[in-house]
């Protein structure tokens, strides 16, 4: 198992996490130790394993039913809003 700082940076980019340089170092050490531990599953021979679980339909019928949500509470938590709409930065 060998990870590099570059790997940590790539993962952080994928996960949209801002990390300090110091934290990248400590995360690298932690990840190597944790991945070193979980890697022991490599030794397990699995062969043909199939799940015994039965799969069945749990979807409900598509019928209208009132749901109790507080619109006011939702809008109040927007970091920025205008006329009851969520306001975000320009993306184009």
């Amino acid at each position, binding site marked *: 198992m060998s990870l590099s700082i570059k790997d940590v940076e790539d993962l952080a980019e994928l996960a949209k996490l801002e990390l300090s340089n110091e934290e990248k170092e400590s995360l690298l050490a932690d990840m190597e130790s944790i991945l070193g531990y979980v890697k022991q599953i490599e030794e397990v021979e699995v062969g043909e394993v199939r799940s015994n679980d039965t799969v069945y339909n749990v979807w409900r019928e598509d019928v209208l039913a009132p749901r109790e949500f507080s619109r006011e509470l939702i809008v109040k938590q*927007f970091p920025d809003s205008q006329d009851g709409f969520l306001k975000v930065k320009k993306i184009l």
Partner: protein
Amino acid sequence: MIDLENLTIEKARKFLDAKEFSAVDLANAYLAEIEKKNKELNAYLEVFDDVLDQARVADEIIAKGESYPLLGIPLAIKDNILIKGQIASSASKMLENYVASYDATVITKLKKQGAVFLGRTNMDDSAMGGSTENSAFGVTKNPHDLSRVAGGSSGGSVATVIANLALGALGSDTGGSVREPAAFCGIVGMKPTYGRVSRYGLIAMGSSLDCIGPIAKNVEDAQIIYEAILGSDVFDSTTITDTTYKKLSFKKELTLGVPWDLVNGEGINEEVKENFKQSIDKLEKFGFKIKDISIKNIDMALAVYYIIMPAEASTNLSRFDGMRYGFHKGGKNLLEDYKQARGFGFGQEVRRRILLGTYVLSAGYYDAYYGKAQMIRNMLKKEFSKAFENVDLIATPTAPFIAWKIGAKSNPLSMYLADIFTITANIIGVPAMSIPSGFSEIENKKLPLGIQFMAPHGREDLLFEVGKQFETLKKE
């Protein structure tokens, strides 16, 4: 004065119905204790300002002659379960100011019974940890020894019940987060069968593992809370019904399986082993048949868990982007907004698990980690089904060691090992319960230990039965 120390939900029900004290009296008694002790323990993150109003409503219902098991009973709720109009922060800076816009199903059910919610309790940030040391708002101290952790992630909920700051509590259990703190603090904590209790309104961590569970002073009380919150729910398609699992019939004489090779394995504290052996001896003398069982690959469960859980958590936590609610720190553009909110809003352990989850799910490693872990998970399920053909219940210690000193475990992996006995129940989805099994004396302090029982899918009734029997044995 109400004797809170010896009060149980069952007793309080009788007193309330007989009008020996009112729900307002009871709530006031708890509020007074909270006022005295919470600052030191840091068990509650917030005590609600409408506690007495809730109690008054309960008293009105009692006055009408109605009665429900939890009517007027003061409960503490873990900070990751939504109560409409109240903050639910998951003890994270990310959700520090997040106000829930709806009730979790468990809350709706408790409200229907007229339960009184005292406040929201401390936990590890986003339920990730085994000690509440990862909380963004400080650690919860163990009421038995303030220099030690209360366990986690439901440490606050557990501490409120043992310190008489609530009569019962709700926690959540993804890998042992109800049972491990219950063992560390000496009370009863239970994880139901996966899907038995709705997860709607529980802030998600590992969706195939998460369960809401009761925390109480004794098995009877845990059962009362459990029966109040269970049931299938259209808002959670993973909930089960009474007929989901076939009920096998059992003989009068119950057989307990003990995986001795795991219990006697490396890294298990000697006092924990000794205490567990004594408990098993007592159960055997009482009439339980004890059977040594060996479960293939059970020693892989922890590794499997620390692949599946971060994978699911990294997926679930991708919803927190600081856009619609939660921590927001404006950057130069939208991408920077995301990265800053997530980089600064999540605690260190959460960032660690998000990265781990992203790694094990990434294209080049998916098969070797996540795919393989899922296959071993299926193997473990089969192995346990086989084991349950020969035994009714499986017993282990709840945790491999006693509550540690605050700050003593700085390496994340050493903390993860605390889950060695509890995670299996989450991986295979069976119900499990931790029950106090005695004390260990360290530095003149009596520190609790716990025994864990696991039952087949859908057989919570067996846990309650063996639990109640074990409680009477302990008194002898």
